[in-house]
């Protein structure tokens, strides 16, 4: 159990900056997920924490102590890899025992014959055996201890990889996309299992994924990374509800948030294609801004009420909900919004519908894509315009 501090880490490969002065604090016992599209630097960051790669600049601290100069094995971290990276020629038992044997037995004691003669070896071996069996028990691997990795299913290999990490009770667990090689059903199962394991061990986890569902469901903290920078660190709920950057808003949430580009008018209202959203912003007059609506915050306008009008392109019935893709005049990309099945019953592609925007949930971003406050409105609709009072 330990806290982890990353202090202005930089890494450049050739001319390409992979990490641009990244700082991050992972509190003791947190489940921190680094999430971002591929190539955003999250795996590199994890490798630098583990010591498998070296940073150009900056520091990694565990419990306040710098470990930047330490070899991976001395950092007291354990790592779980996407391909599981089990030793193919060793049994499950040996795979789990390896980190203990290498740490607790001196080189001489590990030798096949000589080792038996070394004093104290037997006691250490016994302790290793009981630790391996306890871990295997916890992960329900006891029946599989004599098998080789090739004889295991993906989920079982994943559990062995977890066991090998857990067995020596490291300060920090690092996981690099450990679920990406599993099929969808098993992934859901292992998601819950890893989250449960985290609670049970109470250890600090740093988990890398490109899958926002994994990030949202398992973590206590989420760090969204893009282009070598951490854009926001927050709880999963706040990442979703209050994205600090338009890129975070667009990355988290499926289907994607709808973004309408606009311009700030003199009276502080925001002109977007086809209509105007009145309200007080603190953005300079004439500047570019965008406003985002999540699919669940757009619905159909009530009959007889003036509202922005859109043409339905197609409807996706998923069962419990219907996703509607509609085009809004003057807007390049289609809008996506979510309806209950009964609301969509009489809709068909090509229909004209009025959009009811839940303005209280609008996300406003300035020209640089940073979140800007949008004063809570009392909405008022004036012929074709949605107006804030």
């Amino acid at each position: 159990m330990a806290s982890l501090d990353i202090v202005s880490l930089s890494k450049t490969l050739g001319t390409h900056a992979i990490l641009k002065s990244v700082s991050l604090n992972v509190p003791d016992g947190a489940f921190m997920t680094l999430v971002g599209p591929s190539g955003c630097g999250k795996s590199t960051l994890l490798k630098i924490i583990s010591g498998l790669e070296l940073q150009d600049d900056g520091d990694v601290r565990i419990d306040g102590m710098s470990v930047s100069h330490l070899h991976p094995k001395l950092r007291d971290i354990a790592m779980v890899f996407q391909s599981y990276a089990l030793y193919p020629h060793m049994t499950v038992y040996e795979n789990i025992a390896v980190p203990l044997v290498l740490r607790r037995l001196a080189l001489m004691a590990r030798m096949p014959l000589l080792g038996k003669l070394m004093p104290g070896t037997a006691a250490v071996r016994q302790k290793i055996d009981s630790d391996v069996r306890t871990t295997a028990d916890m992960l329900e691997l006891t029946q599989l201890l004599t098998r080789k990795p090739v004889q295991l299913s993906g989920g079982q290999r994943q559990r062995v990889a977890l066991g090998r990490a857990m067995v020596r009770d490291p300060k920090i667990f690092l996981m690099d996309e450990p679920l990406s090689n599993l099929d969808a059903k098993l992934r859901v199962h292992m998601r819950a299992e890893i989250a449960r394991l985290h609670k049970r061990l109470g250890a600090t986890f740093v988990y890398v994924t490109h899958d926002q569902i994994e990030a949202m469901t398992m973590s206590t903290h989420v760090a969204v990374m893009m282009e070598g920078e951490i854009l926001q660190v927050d709880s999963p709920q706040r990442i979703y509800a209050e994205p600090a950057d338009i890129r975070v808003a667009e990355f988290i949430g499926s289907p994607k948030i709808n973004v309408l580009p606009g311009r700030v008018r003199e009276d502080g209202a925001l002109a977007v294609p086809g209509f105007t959203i009145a309200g007080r912003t603190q953005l300079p007059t004439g500047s570019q801004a965008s406003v985002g609506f999540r699919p669940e915050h757009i619905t159909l306008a009530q009959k007889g009420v003036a509202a922005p009008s859109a043409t339905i392109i197609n409807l996706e019935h998923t069962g419990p909900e219907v996703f509607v893709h509609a085009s809004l005049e003057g807007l390049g990309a289609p809008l996506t919004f979510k309806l209950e099945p009964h609301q969509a019953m009489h809709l068909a592609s090509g229909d004209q519908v009025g959009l009811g925007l839940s303005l209280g949930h609008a996300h406003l971003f300035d020209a640089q894509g940073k979140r800007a406050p949008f004063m809570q409105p009392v909405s008022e609709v004036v012929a074709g315009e949605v107006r804030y009072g």
Partner: protein
Amino acid sequence: MSRSTPLRPKRWTFGRITRLLVLSAGAMIMLAPFIWGFSASLKPPAEIWSGSILLWPETFYGIENYTQALTRAPLWLFLINGVLVCIGILFFQVLFAVPCAYALSKTRFAGRTAIFAMVLIGLLIPIHVTAIPLYIAFANLGLLNTYTALIAPFAISVFGIFLFRQFFAAIPDELIAAARVDGFSEWTIVWRVVLPAAWPAVTAFAIFSVTSHWNDLFWPFIVIQSTELAPPPLGVLYFRRDESGVDFGPMMAATMIVTAPLVVAFLLAQRRFIDGITLSGLKG
């Protein structure tokens, strides 16, 4: 059953017959000397040069030939020499090639590409080019006519380095990373993680190494004078230097005995041989 099922016997098309004929002719050309040698090993001296091509002898002289082969020269000694030399060469080749290949495939250091290029160039240089400088060097060191002279020139195999490097490159980096985090040192990663994972490559390489050095005549012929140190092919030559001139019957019998271990090994591990050649994509 679909028409393309491979289980269905193929038709004797013109193309197929041609292919089989060409392959059979090739096989016959390859096998002919061996068959002739086997047949000669069963014939009395007079019959070998009789001019008629008979595969089976009119008078069976096999027992005499093979007894002479085993008694006239210390054939057992030649075989033991062959085993010692082949094992020695293979041991050192693996000992040196595996760490080199690991460094070339899984670590980053300045000059790595240049060194690998040198390994590739090394593949192009046959032993015949370096034979004379090596001979002079061994002569100056006073090491001619020793096991060292037989083993040392082959202890570092660029082919081995190349073959292992190609195979190690396919081992996932994550496995090496996991080993580093688990606490293996680089040296133990090589022997405890990479080598066991690359066992098929080692087998393939061992096959190439052992066949070529068991059958090698050129180098032992240069550096070995005493009969006690001769590996099998050189030993067979001693039958020629006999007081009775070239005595083909016992000589062929000795050749058969010397070839037998490899043939037996091939028959026992046919699949491995073929896998090895497929794996390396090269013929030694």
